């Protein structure tokens, strides 16, 4: 076979040409549609700006829940969405802004949400617990600490950005 000159029969030639032309047509038809469909994956994610949340003077050593509202643009729908954070000052006087989203399955945690654990964050969905610094209590459902918000203090006001995940215990 390899010794001889490769012969392409008329039938084979027509087959190749037709498959090629047909494939090209199908591809040019489908390419824009596929690009259209996968657009959300390829869109650059817009990093949210820092939002003013609360006066620093209001932050105590006990975690308090602060809320702020942002304008959310969801394709053709614009709405105001409220975010919240548990914020306190630790013994080194550093501000700790914790995300209230449970790392187990995304419920919302509360400080001292359970009477038996007055100095822990508690998630009512599956009894997940976190210490005051946001570290998850071992042998409870969550397997990572609560996210920490990016933050900065400007003119005595706390600004919060995106929640950043931390390494699990």
């Amino acid at each position, binding site marked *: 076979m390899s010794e001889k000159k490769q012969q392409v029969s008329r039938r084979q030639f027509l087959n190749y040409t037709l498959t090629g032309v047909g494939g090209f047509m199908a591809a040019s038809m489908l390419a824009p549609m596929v690009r*259209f469909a996968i657009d959300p994956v390829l869109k650059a994610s817009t990093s949210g700006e820092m939002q003013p949340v609360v006066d620093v003077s209001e932050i105590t050593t006990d975690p308090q829940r602060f809320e702020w509202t942002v304008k959310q643009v969801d394709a053709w729908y614009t709405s105001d969405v409220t975010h919240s954070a548990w914020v306190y000052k630790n013994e080194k006087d550093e501000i700790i802004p914790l995300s209230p989203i449970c790392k187990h399955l995304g419920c919302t945690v509360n400080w001292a949400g359970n009477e038996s654990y007055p100095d822990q964050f508690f998630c009512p969905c599956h009894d997940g617990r976190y210490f005051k610094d946001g570290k998850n209590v071992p042998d409870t459902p969550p397997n990572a600490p609560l996210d920490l918000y990016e933050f900065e203090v400007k003119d005595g006001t706390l600004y919060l950005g995106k929640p950043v995940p931390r390494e699990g215990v």
Partner: protein
Amino acid sequence: MLQKMYDWIDERVDITPLWRDIADHEVPEHVNPAHHFSAFVYCFGGLTFFVTVIQILSGMFLTMYYVPDIENAWRSVYYLQTQVQAGQIVRGMHHWGASVVIVMLFLHTLRVFFQGAYKKPRELNWMVGVLIFFVMLALGLTGYLLPWDNKAYFATVVTLQIAEQVPFIGEMAKTLLNGDPSIVGAQTLARFFAIHVFFLPAALFVLMAVHFIMIRKQGISGPL
């Protein structure tokens, strides 16, 4: 590789006769443009089908962004046209294809008419073809409303008034299409969307299947 995969499946379920039956049949000389160039007139049916496939595909993709709701319909169309990559192309395909499909359908009908290809024993297929034509027109009509802009709205107002002119059942027909006795609005849009993407395509698939099965059964009509 592909051959092996094909053989593996074919050995088990014997698919060769299936596709042979659909794809592998002789083209009579009088239908082959290579023999008589004028035979290109036989292409219009196939072209109608081809454009219909484009319509189905582009329509499926458009519903990924479109919402049939009076508050958001126009905005979602505007969004997919201006913010989504290739949005203009995909909507353009559906928009222009809608006109092209009617043109092709019409040329196909003219060919069949002037060649007398509708005569016995093919009258039934002519009737099915006419039904396909009506379904296509209805698809065009219901699709026209969906962008929910001024042109769409007033075109539909006019259409509904035409429907109202039908003797005896006119008023009922109008309410049935409209979803409300007087308001052209939320219910009209929801209804037209449902009709456009579910009911009419379902009818179209059945009719096309019947149309094609009959062609295979009866063969293409002989030369003039």
